[in-house]
């Protein structure tokens, strides 16, 4: 029998519908693989074996009748940021110790309604703040891709558990979230596909909030088709989130395999950074050639405010975070550390419950919103954000359909990298190509396009017009077809 965990979502779906395999078999195979791998990879922070097998049984009954949803019986991993009823939901923070919500997030509800099976909750940077998954209270996640000398590498972040688990075939696909690059950067570091849809495409209800004007959920998967299948299920209008778009969700899978002949691909000159490794530039040129060979028209464009996106982000995101994270006070849920007064209890709880990166961001956010600094920092950053969005609007008004850029400025780096650890800004630079997309609310996909000199996966990013995710799947599948897919050699 073939290894069931080697099947993509679309392949497994076909076999399930043809009754060649059962969801119970598939789910058991994933549970076994995930439990065996977790000691090495630390991708999961909680396994839900019993729930998964119960869901699989229900799916098998439906499949036997020739019924079931689009993801019927497919085992997924769920990022710890999504509220899952009665199951570990702690945003990988100590401050949410023991939290098991009494409700289900809209995204996981949508997936379960389509028949998905949850095999566990995935590790992530604490409150999604990080680019290496090293800020998790549950420890770092290991990338299934290793350095040449066996060095352990980060899977990226914040959705590091999601990316690691998908690349290691210990779930068929995973949910993830992206505030500044947290889906696309880990996808690029692990040779997987990750899409951050347009702001408002997926409901944020029941997703632990980091920066509400930037946060969006999306999938990480092994190939472009699987990403289309998962996003179609995750996205839907939702009365519980007033920022969720009231737009029908198209059949994204129908975009895959469509020709890109005549499609206009913009190449922004501002993404050519000083000191960028030669291999990133080469990968970008390779991507341009792939799309050109498929008949697309390549045009040079300018996005003049690109370099200001990251500094503006590091005002807007911490400001929103400082407000969102005010709710963790030792009263309503999670950790409480006692004190002599209620204020002391708040201060002790938050000092013990938040990690250092989270504290830094809450304090930056509090500072930039405080009296006397609000206009100089926050309002200015929001004005810059308007300019960043206008840059993209100008490019799209010139007829550009999608924009091609590198996904990250490097391949995956080592766990415990000293330079990154000693300077928070160095770590922030990981998101230099992805953060613009969140600032402008646009959809962006990261698709693997090749390997680095050291044999590590590298990704390219495609950026689209609002709510035109279909165009991204169309162009990304062309790159995927030309570049192939990338799977790490099993060592764990």
């Amino acid at each position, binding site marked *: 029998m073939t290894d069931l965990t080697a099947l993509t979502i679309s392949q497994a779906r076909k076999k399930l519908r043809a009754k060649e395999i059962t969801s119970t078999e598939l789910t058991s195979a994933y549970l076994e693989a995930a439990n065996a791998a977790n000691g090495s990879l630390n991708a999961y922070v909680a396994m839900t074996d019993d729930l998964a097998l119960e869901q699989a049984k229900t799916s098998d009954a439906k499949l036997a009748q020739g019924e079931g949803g689009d993801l019927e019986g497919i085992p997924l991993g769920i990022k710890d940021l999504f509220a899952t009823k009665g199951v570990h939901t702690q945003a990988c923070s100590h401050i949410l110790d*023991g*939290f*098991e919500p*009494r*409700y289900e997030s809209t995204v996981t509800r949508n997936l379960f309604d389509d028949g998905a099976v949850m095999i566990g909750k995935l590790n992530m940077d604490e409150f999604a703040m990080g680019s290496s998954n090293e800020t998790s209270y549950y420890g770092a996640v290991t990338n299934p891709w290793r350095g040449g000398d066996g060095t352990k590498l980060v899977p990226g972040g914040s959705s590091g558990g999601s990316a690691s688990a998908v690349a290691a075939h210990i779930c068929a696909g995973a949910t993830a979230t992206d505030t500044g690059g947290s889906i696309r950067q880990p996808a690029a570091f692990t040779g997987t596909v990750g899409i951050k849809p*347009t*702001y*408002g495409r997926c409901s944020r209800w029941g997703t632990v909030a980091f920066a509400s*004007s*930037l946060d969006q959920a999306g999938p990480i998967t092994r190939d472009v088709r699987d990403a289309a299948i998962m996003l179609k299920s995750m996205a839907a209008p939702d*009365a519980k989130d*007033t*920022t*969720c*778009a009231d737009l029908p969700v198209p059949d994204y899978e129908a975009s895959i395999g469509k020709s890109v002949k005549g499609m206009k691909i913009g190449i922004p000159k501002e993404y050519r950074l000083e000191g960028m490794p030669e291999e990133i530039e080469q990968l970008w040129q390779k991507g341009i050639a792939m799309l050109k060979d498929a008949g697309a028209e390549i045009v040079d464009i300018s996005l003049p*405010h690109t370099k*200001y996106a990251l*500094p*503006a982000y590091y*005002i807007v995101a911490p400001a929103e975070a*400082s407000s969102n994270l*005010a709710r963790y*006070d030792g*009263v309503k849920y*999670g*950790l*409480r550390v*006692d*004190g*002599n*007064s*209620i*204020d002391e*209890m*708040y*201060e*002790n709880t*938050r*000092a013990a419950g938040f990690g250092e990166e989270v504290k*830094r961001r*809450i*304090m*930056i956010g*509090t*500072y930039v919103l*405080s009296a006397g*600094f609000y206009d100089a*920092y926050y309002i*200015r*950053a*929001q*004005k*810059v*954000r*308007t*300019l960043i*969005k206008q840059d993209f609007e100008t490019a799209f008004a010139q007829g550009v359909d999608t924009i091609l850029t590198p996904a990250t400025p490097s391949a995956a780096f080592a766990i415990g990298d000293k330079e990154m650890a000693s300077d928070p*800004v160095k770590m922030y630079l990981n998101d230099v190509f992805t953060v613009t997309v969140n*600032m402008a609310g646009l959809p962006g996909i990261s698709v693997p396009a090749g390997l680095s000199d050291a044999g590590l996966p590298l990704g390219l990013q495609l950026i689209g017009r*609002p709510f035109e995710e279909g165009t991204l799947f169309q162009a990304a599948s062309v790159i995927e077809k030309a570049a192939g897919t990338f799977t790490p050699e099993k060592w764990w």
Partner: protein
Amino acid sequence: MSVDTATVKRVAKLSRIAITDERAESMREELNTILGFVEQLNDVNVDGVEPMTSVVDMEMRKRVDEVNDGNMAADVTANAPAQEDHFFMVPKVVE
């Protein structure tokens, strides 16, 4: 702009995060690195630019102002570190 240790302590107080003198010192350096990085926004001409209030061009959906759920006190307090009869318990606030 940069912050001094007294400002770090004031911000920690506003953030309700207890901080030791030693940590306030190292936090000052970290915050100043970040504030130094965002300083470059001063190079941008933002004259006449509207600050962004909504990233997607759409009107926020509104709903009728009516009660549409409730009677979930047990669920609401289920995860509280200390609760009694569906009340959140906190240290004494009034002498």
